[in-house]
């Protein structure tokens, strides 16, 4: 619509009149009417200056074939008609020229303003629609642009195309009962048609469409646009109005601008999601490989992430206490899960004979049976000695006593060694002295060669003070943490996962700095790293099948962890949280055998907290 009243400034027109009217006879009245508005009037005598009034001459002003205004002149006398007519034509012509020039300028300006508008929209859309790398968030942001004030659509929806077929599924929608109505729309013949079209369009009176059977009572007009990126249809934007003539070409243009940006953002988000999925499956492959390497630790890499996230969630929920500031967003959750899944990835290079070393004399085979055999030899030696003594005239009673005494001693020694071999008991200096004295007994092999009862290597291993690993083997085992660091530092983690290596590699560090591989102290370890450490310990203690012991009971595990807290081995605050929020119980009821779950008196460990 032409708003001609804005085209000429009244001050300019007034000046034009002032300059021109004196050239005509005095007493002339003049007025300019533009777009229904009287812009200027020179009428000292107060004559009726309306069109058609007596003596008033009207000169029409037009734009694009349409009259937009009138120049009105009233002659004081009748004898100068021809001259006034000529001057009037000249004035009208100059005003007409000004109007046309202004009209041209304004149409250029309108185009400029339109591009400003589109530029602003694009700028905002690029920022808003690329804000998230999640497909669902992108389409939600797109739809938000059409929902609410200054929008013509009463309803809106985005349908997403399935990855492997042409099906469209409703992803998001707005409007009253929109979910139901768009589901109905999806079943309509019209939808079947528009969902495969290459371009978008408007149907402003749905009842006029042969494909529309009034499928959705509230929809009178429809605007749709395929979301296309790289020539691939990713989805469909549909807007609906309760009114016929609900949408204009400008609505479609705006929707096109937004949809083109959204489609690119959506494609990027989908690619990113696919990459993430692939990376996660790689992580799972590694975790599965570690778990599969040893039957004893099967499931460890799967369960530690679960416990870690349970602890993290408890910390996230905490409204007071040491973890009040700990928050967990999706990126962080993802990073912690990956870190916990990969914490033992270095074990891929640890030899299984160390990982699976169930007893001290284990080396592929458990050598205790060799020792048992030698003891059997000694038992037989004793039997032979008994008969030899009898043959040599010894008294039967005394030979029998010596024999029984020897057997008792051998059995005693062997069960002592057997017990040492399990690694369940601490080897004191008395124990060690006894092992060495047993070792000094001698036996003859089949060639008659004489050997000590235990080899040096056997003594060395049996003398292991705690557990079943000798120092060399312990180093090999501990080296898995170094391998974890080495392996993970080679992965080019994105920014959101940049802490994964630190979280994963710290699980054998201790709060007091006596852990490995770096000997970091508590304040040098991130909270997530300390969480993985606790999860790792708890899982190991409660795991159903560890080489060195039977499945531990819950109370036993908590008791050991409590001692670890007192020893400043694990983070005390996290242990308290683990107890007070009953994380251990939630995990146990999900993963532990019923006979492992016994009563845990948490208050006993939590008492005196904070003192």
């Amino acid at each position, binding site marked *: 619509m032409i*708003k001609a009243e*804005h085209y000429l400034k009244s001050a300019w027109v007034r000046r034009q009149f002032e300059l021109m009217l004196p050239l005509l006879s005095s007493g002339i009245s003049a007025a300019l009417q533009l777009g229904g508005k009287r812009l200027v009037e020179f009428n000292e005598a107060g004559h009726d200056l309306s069109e058609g009034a007596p003596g008033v001459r009207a000169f029409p002003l037009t734009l694009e074939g349409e009259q937009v205004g009138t120049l009105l002149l009233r002659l004081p006398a009748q004898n100068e008609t021809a001259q006034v007519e000529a001057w009037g034509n000249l004035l009208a012509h100059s005003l007409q020229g000004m109007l046309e020039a202004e009209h041209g*300028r*304004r149409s250029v*300006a*309108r185009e*400029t*303003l339109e591009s*400003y*508008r589109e*530029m*602003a*929209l694009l700028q905002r859309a690029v920022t808003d629609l690329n804000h998230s790398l999640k497909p669902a968030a992108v389409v939600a942001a797109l739809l938000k642009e059409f929902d609410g004030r*200054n929008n013509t659509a009463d309803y809106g929806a985005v349908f997403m195309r399935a990855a492997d077929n042409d099906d469209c599924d409703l992803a998001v929608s707005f409007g009253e009962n929109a979910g139901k109505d768009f589901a109905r729309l999806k079943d309509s013949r019209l939808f079947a048609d528009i969902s495969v079209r290459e371009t978008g369009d408007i149907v402003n009176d749905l009842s006029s469409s042969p494909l529309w059977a009034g499928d959705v009572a509230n929809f009178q007009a429809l605007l749709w646009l395929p979301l296309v990126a790289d020539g691939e249809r990713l989805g469909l934007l549909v807007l609906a109005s309760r009114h016929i003539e609900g949408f204009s070409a400008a609505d479609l243009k705006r929707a096109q601008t937004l949809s083109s940006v959204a489609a690119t953002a959506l494609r990027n988000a989908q690619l990113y999601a696919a990459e993430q999925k692939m990376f996660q499956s790689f992580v799972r492959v590694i975790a599965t490989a570690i778990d599969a390497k040893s039957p004893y630790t099967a499931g460890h890499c799967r369960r530690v992430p679960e416990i870690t996230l349970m602890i993290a969630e408890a910390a996230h929920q905490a409204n007071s206490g040491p973890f009040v500031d700990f928050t967990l967003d999706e990126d962080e959750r993802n990073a912690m899960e990956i870190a916990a899944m990969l914490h033992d990835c270095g074990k891929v290079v640890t030899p299984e004979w160390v990982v699976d070393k169930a007893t001290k004399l284990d080396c592929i085979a458990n050598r205790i049976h060799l020792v048992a055999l030698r003891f059997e030899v000694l038992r037989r030696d004793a039997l032979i000695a008994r008969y030899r003594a009898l043959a040599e005239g010894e008294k039967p009673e005394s030979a029998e006593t010596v024999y029984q005494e020897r057997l008792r001693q051998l059995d005693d020694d062997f069960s002592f060694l057997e017990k040492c071999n399990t690694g369940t008991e601490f080897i004191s200096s008395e124990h060690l002295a006894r092992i060495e004295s047993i070792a000094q007994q001698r036996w003859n092999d089949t060639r008659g060669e004489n050997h000590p009862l235990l080899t040096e290597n056997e003594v060395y291993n049996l003398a292991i003070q705690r557990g079943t690993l000798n120092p060399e083997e312990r180093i090999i085992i501990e080296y898995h943490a170094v391998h974890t660091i080495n392996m993970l530092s080679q992965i080019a983690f994105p920014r959101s996962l940049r802490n994964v290596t630190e979280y994963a590699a710290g699980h054998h560090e201790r709060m007091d700095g006596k852990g490995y591989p770096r000997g970091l102290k508590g304040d040098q370890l991130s909270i997530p790293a300390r969480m993985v450490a606790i999860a790792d310990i708890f899982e190991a203690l409660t795991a159903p099948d560890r080489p060195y012991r039977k499945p531990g009971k819950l109370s036993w595990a908590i008791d050991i962890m409590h001692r670890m807290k007192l020893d400043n081995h694990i983070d005390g605050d996290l242990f308290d949280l683990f107890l007070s929020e009953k994380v251990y119980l939630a995990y146990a009821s999900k993963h532990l055998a019923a006979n492992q779950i016994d009563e845990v008196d948490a208050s006993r460990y939590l008492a005196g907290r904070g003192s």
Partner: protein
Amino acid sequence: MSRNMKIAIVDDEIHIRSLLEQTLEDLEGEPDILIAANGAEGLALIEREQPQLVFLDVMMPLMNGYEVCAAVRKNPGLSGTTIVMLTAKGQESDRVRGLEEGAHRFITKPFDPDEILDLAREILGL
């Protein structure tokens, strides 16, 4: 709304003046749109006409937007004048200075016509 609702545009660039003017003509209530092409002229215009709303460019000859803004803020008779500063894209630091001098709002050039209209309607209560 009162009859003599006035909006002033103070900018040395003719195309900005012209585009702003054309945009503001779409406002309801037909406010008077007053134009000045530099800071000094703009201040004189504002003091004379006391518009409710001023679109004020920052970079202008004779008197820049900050100086005009500061002068307007010092004039108690102009307490009812809202100043919207026009800043160039990427000159976000201008905003700090503008706020210090008493500007109320900011619009980045090239401006979004709808944003201009929404802002004017909000300020003028249309």
